[in-house]
């Protein structure tokens, strides 16, 4: 912060450098956080954010540079050492024990004991209640945390960090798993942390969040710091240009040629998930499916793809009613679905990129029961080129790729089946800005080539940018259908949240 002297700073890291072999992944990076300050770090995937966090959290040791905490030089040899200094990292993947209650999770590792050396449940319960009250977290601390929502679990992790007297809290993309309402709640919580003098390092791909919550922002690109400024002094374009090293070209929508209705749902229902959903997607059209998390969008996609049985209504493909028995039948009918959960439903983590991209339609690369590997390689090479996937080779294990490149590989997989209908569920989740733009272009190109496309996204910007038409869902029903011209964050949000 301007005017702050060194001893005022909570964290003062200078010249942090990290190499892996010959590869410098972090180069001479400075980062300071004052007590009660939220310092955002932005950058594309591969810019060095994760490495920086890992150094601050004691997972990696820096090859160069120094760190001071409250004016004293510190050296973090392990995550435990970081914790001992009051530095707590909260990862996207939460580290709570799902079968234990909130009380037990918060005291895990340092249980309170009574005079007989037994667990002192009463005192732990009382302390937990007090803590939750102080942070205005409203949950029942006695049920297993696995039964709570992701958002609630995240808050418990933060509460746990506070309970061990965290001074510096590092939140690694905490909003990636939350919908808009929950983000508000999280930000309120961060506000309370600030007022308690806790420093926060905040990582997010959503730039608008930076403007809402952060005091200062540091931009990383290719392992170097390209800027640190108070948030009030910068704007969106500045951030993007620092992140990608060039001006962000603004998007102009092209008018696409629309054809016949390819996919049509009429009154489709699935008990407990959605009701009376009717929609049409034409060839060459991108239809956005917006709504809050839990509105039933993914469930509709699953029903179209044959993963979920629907109890009522009709689905038509090219005018003919169909009832799909499963993903295999859907794939054969020319439907492709890219799941929102890459890790659980997308990746074959320990297989090469090549195999990951062709598993959806091996028949295409098979003659007389035998795989034609050269044909397969040709397809994969083409997709890698087309999607600009960055990797050392198509034999690279897919889990070694960055999130954006993994996602691109899965988009390539969707194309292996030569689909007429494509459903993209959160196509840019956990993907950086550069890859995001490429994915948008890829989806638009597909539409231009005549595919019927359904995009599910919780990011307003994304839905608005991509869609010709937007269907907003709320509590399992269609709440509104908006033409491109009438779609804005406001109109969508209003339809998604208000009855």
């Amino acid at each position, binding site marked *: 912060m301007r005017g702050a002297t060194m001893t005022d700073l909570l964290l003062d890291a200078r010249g942090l450098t990290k190499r892996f072999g010959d*590869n410098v992944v972090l180069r001479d990076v400075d980062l300071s956080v004052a007590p009660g300050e939220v310092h955002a770090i932005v950058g594309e*995937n591969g810019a060095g954010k994760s490495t920086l966090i890992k150094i601050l959290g004691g997972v990696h040791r820096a090859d160069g540079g120094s760190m001071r905490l409250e004016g004293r030089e510190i050296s973090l040899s392990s995550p435990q050492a970081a914790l001992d200094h009051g530095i707590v990292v909260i990862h996207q993947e939460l580290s709570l024990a799902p079968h234990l209650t909130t009380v037990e999770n918060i005291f895990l590792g340092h249980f309170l004991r009574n005079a007989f050396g037994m667990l002192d449940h009463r005192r732990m319960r009382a302390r937990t209640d007090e803590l939750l009250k102080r942070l205005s977290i409203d949950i029942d601390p006695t049920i297993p945390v696995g039964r709570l929502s992701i958002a609630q679990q995240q808050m418990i992790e933060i509460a746990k960090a506070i309970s061990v007297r965290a001074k510096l809290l590092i939140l690694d993309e905490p909003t990636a798993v939350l919908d808009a309402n929950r983000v508000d709640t999280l930000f309120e919580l961060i506000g309370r942390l600030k007022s308690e003098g806790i420093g926060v390092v905040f990582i997010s791909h959503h730039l608008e969040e930076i403007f809402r919550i952060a005091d200062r922002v540091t931009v990383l690109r290719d392992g170097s710091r390209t800027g640190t400024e108070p948030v009030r002094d910068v704007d969106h374009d500045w951030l993007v240009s620092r992140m990608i090293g060039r001006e962000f070209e603004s998007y102009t929508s092209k008018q696409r040629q629309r054809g016949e209705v390819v996919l049509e749902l009429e009154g489709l229902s699935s008990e407990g998930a959605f009701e009376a959903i009717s929609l049409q997607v034409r060839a060459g059209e991108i239809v956005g499916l917006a709504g809050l998390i839990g509105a039933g969008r993914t469930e509709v996609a699953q029903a179209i793809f044959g993963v979920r049985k629907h109890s009522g209504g009709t689905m038509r493909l090219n005018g003919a009613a169909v009832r799909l028995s499963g993903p295999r039948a859907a794939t054969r009918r020319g439907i492709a679905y890219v799941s929102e959960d890459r890790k659980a439903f997308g990746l074959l983590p320990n297989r090469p990129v090549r195999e990951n991209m062709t*598993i959806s339609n091996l028949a295409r690369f098979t003659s007389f029961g035998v795989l034609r590997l050269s044909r397969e390689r040709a397809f994969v090479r083409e997709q890698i080129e087309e999607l600009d996937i960055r990797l050392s080779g198509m034999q690279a294990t897919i889990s070694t790729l960055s999130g954006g490149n993994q996602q691109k590989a899965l988009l390539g997989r969707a194309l292996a089946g030569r689909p007429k209908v494509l459903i993209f569920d959160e196509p840019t989740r956990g993907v950086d800005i550069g890859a995001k733009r490429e994915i948008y272009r890829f989806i638009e190109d597909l539409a231009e080539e005549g595919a019927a496309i359904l995009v599910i996204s919780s990011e307003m910007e994304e839905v608005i940018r991509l869609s010709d038409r937007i269907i907003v869902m709320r509590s399992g029903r269609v709440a509104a259908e908006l033409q491109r011209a009438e779609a804005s964050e406001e109109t969508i949000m209003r339809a998604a949240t208000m009855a």
Partner: protein
Amino acid sequence: MSETTPSSRPRDGAGTRSRQQIFSALIGRTGVLAALILLIIVSSFLNDRFLSVPNLMNVLRQVSIVGILAVGMTFVILTKGIDLSVGSILGVSVVLFAGILETQSMAVAIPLGILAAMALGLVNGLGVAFAGIPPFIMTLGMLSFARGLAFIYTGGTPIPILDEAFFNLGNGYTFGVPNPTLILLGTLLVSGFVLTQTPFGRSVYAIGSNEDAARLSGVPVGLYTTIVYVISGGVAGISGLVYASQLSVGTPIAGQAYELDAIAAVVVGGTSLFGGKGSVTGTLIGTLIIGVLANILNLTGVDPFVQQLFKGALIVVAVFIMARSSRA
């Protein structure tokens, strides 16, 4: 996340592989083979007879039965499953071969014995793939059940096999190579081809790597998982063929605890118990490592009880090294 790994860096990935990665690649691809070669070199110094043709042929003949089982086991483990019943299924096929040969010819006995083994594998497969029973439990049940069948069929008494042609299958040589070894190689070649060159094989890896993702990609997970257990059962039948012929007797205790040797061979050969990673070539090498170790310990006169220690340590050390290298 993975943004720190060199391969995610723009295009220059290939040039900047870290030492760790190269190390793990070596272990993964050729490490097991290197271990086998090292073991052979060391053994040849320890004992003059080791490298003699009769001794090597002896090793090959001895490893055949477990080697064949291990090839079938590889399919199962690649899908993240396990098949504890192969030893018992082998036992069933052995007593069937013996029993049928009493009245029928080899041409009837062999297909019937193998079909029976496949049928037991089918039960495993259906239980795992469609009833949702964990592979460990399903095949543990079958281990007991199939052994019971073998005892009931024989009434507990071994059935002698007198058919000379059948005897030849397991004890004869073709082109100077023991027949059992040829059967092992045949099983191995077919399996290797199926796993690497067919959509089914590719799908087996996919199922083991991420079953849900495979299903969403249109892989018929249930069907293929079932087939994998049928293969494992059928291969146990083939292994039983070699066993019955070598011993010329249909004993209901045939193949007891062989499932553990087969699993050991697969694991030492570098196939991951977590699924989706491994190969039958690795399994062959794993089989040979265990076989050669047993052989040299025999030749140098190590106490059979002590041999057990070596074998146990080998399995643990092999898996330890692989776990380390795959984490790197």
